[in-house]
């Protein structure tokens, strides 16, 4: 009789090759394992640990209004120079709250995972979510995981919803912008878009440029101290600085005039944009903000922004003007003027 020898070693693949299976999104044993193993230990807090159908949280005392926002993240690739889809998903939603004048409190985290994603990649992203949420002082209180068959999604899509509290009396609205207001930009433009493009299949080029992904709520909170002199805040993400400025003055009685020579830009970003035929004003940012401020308080606002790492390169880039209402005009380096428009169509899909 032949002896059948069973291997004594573990038949499971080594940890480095472990992959997410369809069963991890089934709602059964594997799903529970995934939550127990990856989610709860990382993000533990009373609201999350209860694992109820909803997170039940207290509203901080002192009044104010709730700000609620949601955003989905489909960036390709999920890891790029300077960040990954995890910190993007936290910072992006934190920034949406911050631009409304809110102090961010809670986040939810929804994941759509493509079957076969490496556990190590998922853990790397979750570590990054954890790190940036801690750094921003927000708690992940609820979440959801779905797994779809290979090819039905691309690696990993995230959704984060955010809840924050806006102090009573504070309003950031483009209707507040008036002629003469200073336009202040918190730093260099185009870094995120160029960093992601540099790693995109078919477009790969070598660059030192890194994504600027960062949470801006502390800088925004500092600017809130200007009260009504802070007219409007917005973070120039997809569509770039151009889209943000165009939206700020569209249909309004004043326009915006900015100077090409005073807009901060990294030489690597400029070179990449020249090469690809892109206008850096249209390229996405993930850690920058624009503030419209009453002219007499502009120096104070600029100093406040420069007090933060993410605002080190802040600069006054222009002002609101009565000429050309509703339009954005650029004074070019060569000394002429031209219109700055919304980008037409899709510059690059899946940038965030």
């Amino acid at each position, binding site marked *: 009789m032949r002896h059948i020898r069973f291997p004594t070693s573990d038949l499971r693949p080594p940890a480095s090759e472990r992959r997410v299976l369809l069963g991890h999104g089934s709602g059964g044993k594997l799903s529970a394992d995934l939550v127990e193993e990856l989610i709860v230990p990382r993000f533990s807090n009373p609201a999350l640990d209860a694992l109820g159908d909803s997170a039940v949280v207290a509203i901080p005392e002192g009044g104010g209004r709730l700000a609620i926002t949601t955003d989905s993240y489909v960036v390709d690739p999920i890891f790029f120079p300077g960040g990954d889809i995890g910190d993007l998903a936290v910072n992006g939603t934190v920034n949406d709250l911050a631009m409304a004048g809110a102090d961010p409190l809670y986040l939810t985290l929804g994941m759509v995972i493509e079957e076969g994603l490496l556990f190590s990649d998922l853990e790397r992203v979750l570590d990054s979510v954890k790190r940036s949420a801690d750094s921003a002082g927000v708690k992940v209180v609820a979440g959801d995981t779905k797994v779809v068959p290979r090819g039905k999604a691309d690696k990993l899509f995230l959704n984060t919803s955010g809840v924050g509290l806006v102090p009573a009396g504070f309003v950031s609205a483009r209707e507040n912008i008036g002629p003469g207001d200073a336009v202040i930009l918190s730093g260099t433009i185009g870094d995120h878009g160029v960093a992601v493009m540099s790693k995109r299949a*078919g*477009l790969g080029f070598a660059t030192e440029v890194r994504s600027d992904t960062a949470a801006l709520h502390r800088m925004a909170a500092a600017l809130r101290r200007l009260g009504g002199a802070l007219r409007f805040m917005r973070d120039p993400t997809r569509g770039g600085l151009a889209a943000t400025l165009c939206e700020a003055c569209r249909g309004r009685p004043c326009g915006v005039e900015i100077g090409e*020579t005073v807009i901060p830009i990294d*030489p690597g970003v*400029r*070179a990449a944009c*020249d090469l690809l*035929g892109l*206008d850096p004003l249209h390229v996405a940012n993930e850690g920058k903000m624009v503030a419209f401020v009453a002219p007499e308080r502009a120096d104070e606002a600029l100093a406040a922004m420069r007090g933060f790492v993410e605002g080190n390169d802040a600069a006054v880039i222009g002002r609101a003007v009565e000429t050309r209402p509703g339009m954005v005009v*650029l*004074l*070019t*380096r*060569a*000394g*002429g*003027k*031209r*219109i700055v*428009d919304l980008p*037409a*169509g899709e510059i690059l899909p899946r940038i965030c």
Partner: protein
Amino acid sequence: MKYIDEFHDGAAAGALSAKIAAAAGRIGRPVRLMEVCGTHTVAVHRHGLRDLFPPGLKLVSGPGCPVCVTPADYVDSAIKAASLPGVTVVTFGDMVRVPGSRSTLVDARASGADVRVVYSPTDALEAAAGEPAREVVFLGVGFETTVPSVAGTMVEARRRGVKNFSVLGAFKQIPNTMRALISDPALAIDGFLCPAHVAAIIGSAAYSFIPAEFKRPCVVAGFEPLDILYGVLGLVTQLAEGRAEVENQYSRVVKTGGNALARRVVHEVLEPADAVWRGIGTIPVSGFRIREGWRDQDAARRFDLSVPALVENPGCRCGEVLRGSLDPPGCSLFGKGCTPERPVGPCMVSSEGSCAANYKYSRQE
């Protein structure tokens, strides 16, 4: 990268602007210059250079946008190719939004056709090599600048034995088109800012027929703001002094004899031919066709891509815009029925189109 700032210097631009005004003043009459190349058109608008010219100097845009001058029935043929089973159409990005008679390649893609955008024809060859079961058709649209890279890719495809790669050609050459434009008294062109990328291939000497036959000046200029201002200064200076020569202001890239190697590759695969320019019509010897010996890579002969003759939108005046006889805002569709988001004519589609550049950077309301 060095040199970007040097070529944008505001003080130097101001000084050149004053010199241009002085030279133009000495000519003693209004001057009409044409920038032929779409890259120049965009740079002029994007850097606001028209603000630096004196009132009597008009810089009109020419037909040097390859997408703009590609006939609409070519787009229909490309859409037909993309809708054939097993065929992938690969193209530079601008082409996908150009309206054919009824739809665009973007529409075809949304309906399930396989249309891909690349930055280089070699990417199309790689796509073919990687998917031997599919037929890959590359849209060969472009001027002398782009033609060598397409021809070189065809040579490479044959060398590597890639059998499923072909090219749908709409190649253009610029000199005879410039001849047609300067021969038209209605256009009254006093001089050309010559296409510099084209000149890098064909050589600045290829423009010498313009001073020789028509007694008008030509300047080959680069694409940075100061390059263009130097180029315009060269043209008005020649006119003021009664000279007509080919000046090469872009000698850091363009040589008198051009790039002989690139021309040899083109000659191997393509032969000069008449070409249809959208909005202008047929111009003798203003294009290339694929040689008989390369018919295996000619998509037009490999597949039945014939399409019905078509009617252009009667309101669209791209033809006049491409000839420089109409400023884009003079078209009744401009900014109303025709915008970059919903283009009617090709000049509003291409990022190098005169209408798109006008709309994006210089529109008035």
